[in-house]
């Protein structure tokens, strides 16, 4: 009988808290959103299931959770906690990104910079709410709308807040189609939303090959702390554009990025153990992340309007919203909102330019924050 009672005490039921149950429920909601609504299924499904796995109560003395040194999940989480997975994701993104539209209209690069305003205003907001400067930097980067970048910076600046920051970043990325359109409509007139942009010019192969090398040198020499993210991004792109490493490019954009996404999503989900995740600070992080994302969207749109004051060939200000680096979701949102006004206005290609510039911009911002706020 004693043995039976002892065994019952080691079951998950005995150690289950309300917090664990809430997190399991959140995991189920994520899985439902992924399957039913198709919101970022490649991320929300692994994160959702990871959250369920991570909230099964631990048994005393047996290392099973991500925070138990030596457990299998701890080893999987190692790639997240030490910032290994994000650069590998960037390698895959580089190998699947076509920078041609950006190369054909370099003005649009500036929209990718303007949208980073969300990061830095949120940093001030986080300091205002009492977070340390390092935590504030890690929270602000959510406004970059780039999951891997958020995880990378959080792992360097605020590892204890990593799971909340990662979940917030990926949640808002999944909610791009919900969050961005109202802000875009609010800040633009109907006339502006109807603007048609000149079709992009043809970009030569030489331009596409030289770009990743030169862009890396410019960005990395300006902000050396960003080399692991930008190095992998541009390396992946060079694999694609060189035309001589198709096998490597193909592996990077398919098998490698998929494998890392599975491990990253699952282990980030498993890191959302209630005792670490359900805190007042996590709620603040979610609120600040939402604010950051909204400010970033507004920053891009307003900067496009500002540029229009000086440009002969006007930009459709909606493309500014794609300056947040949720690739390619925010570019798709721009296309959807524009086609709502004019079904024949194709803005997707134009929106991809600030979108990929936003990826570079947020990686540079992460590098700056890391070098300024570390230690």
């Amino acid at each position, binding site marked *: 009988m004693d043995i039976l009672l002892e065994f019952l005490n080691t079951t998950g039921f005995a150690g289950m808290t309300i917090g664990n149950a809430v997190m399991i429920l959140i995991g189920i909601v994520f899985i439902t959103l992924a399957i039913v609504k198709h919101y970022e299924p490649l991320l929300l499904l692994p994160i959702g299931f990871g959250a369920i796995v991570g909230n099964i109560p631990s048994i005393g003395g047996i290392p099973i959770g991500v925070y138990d040194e030596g457990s299998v999940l701890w080893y999987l989480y190692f790639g997240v906690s030490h910032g290994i997975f994000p650069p590998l994701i960037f390698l895959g993104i580089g190998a699947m990104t076509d920078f041609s539209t950006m190369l054909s209209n370099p003005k649009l*690069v500036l929209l990718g910079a303007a949208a980073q305003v969300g990061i*830095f205003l949120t940093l001030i907001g986080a300091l205002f709410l009492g977070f340390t400067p390092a935590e504030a930097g890690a929270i602000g980067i959510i406004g970059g709308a780039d999951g891997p970048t958020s995880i990378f910076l959080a792992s360097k600046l605020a590892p204890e807040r990593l799971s909340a920051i990662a979940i917030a970043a990926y949640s808002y990325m999944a909610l791009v189609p919900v969050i961005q359109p109202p802000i875009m409509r609010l800040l633009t007139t109907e006339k502006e939303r109807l603007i048609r942009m000149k079709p992009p010019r043809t970009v*030569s192969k030489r331009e596409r090959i030289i770009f990743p090398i030169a862009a890396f040198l410019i960005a990395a020499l300006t902000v050396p702390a960003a080399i692991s993210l930008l190095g992998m991004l541009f390396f992946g792109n060079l694999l694609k554009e060189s035309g001589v490493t198709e096998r490597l490019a193909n592996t990077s954009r398919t098998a490698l990025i998929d494998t890392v996404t599975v491990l990253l999503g699952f282990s980030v989900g498993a890191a959302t153990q209630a005792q670490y995740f359900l805190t007042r600070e996590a709620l603040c992080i979610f609120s600040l992340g939402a604010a950051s994302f909204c400010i970033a969207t507004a920053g891009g749109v307003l900067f496009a309007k500002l540029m229009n004051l000086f440009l002969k060939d006007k930009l459709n200000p909606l493309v500014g919203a794609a300056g947040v680096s949720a690739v390619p979701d925010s570019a798709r949102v721009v296309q959807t909102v524009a086609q709502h006004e004019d079904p024949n206005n194709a803005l997707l290609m134009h929106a991809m330019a600030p979108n990929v510039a936003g990826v570079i911009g947020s990686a540079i911002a992460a590098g700056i924050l890391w070098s300024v706020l570390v230690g």
Partner: protein
Amino acid sequence: MSAWLDKAVQNVIDGNGIVISIAAMLIVFTALTLLSLFIAALPRFLKIVARVLPEEHPAGPPPVDERIVAAIGCVLRRRKYGSSDGHSS
């Protein structure tokens, strides 16, 4: 309330929040402006390079699949001569 507000503002000042934000935003803009200027100058630079080292496969429209051309030709011919064109030529 006032004490909380003072503390919050002091936290922003102590953390150099405003200075970091402005400086970082300027650096992001500088880096991406340099990138933008480089991209704008690249075609001109490549024109000069092309005089010395012409591109083996100059940029142009992607190679067209001959089967697609044949299919388009077939459709155009049918439109012009009717569907029984197979026997008309």
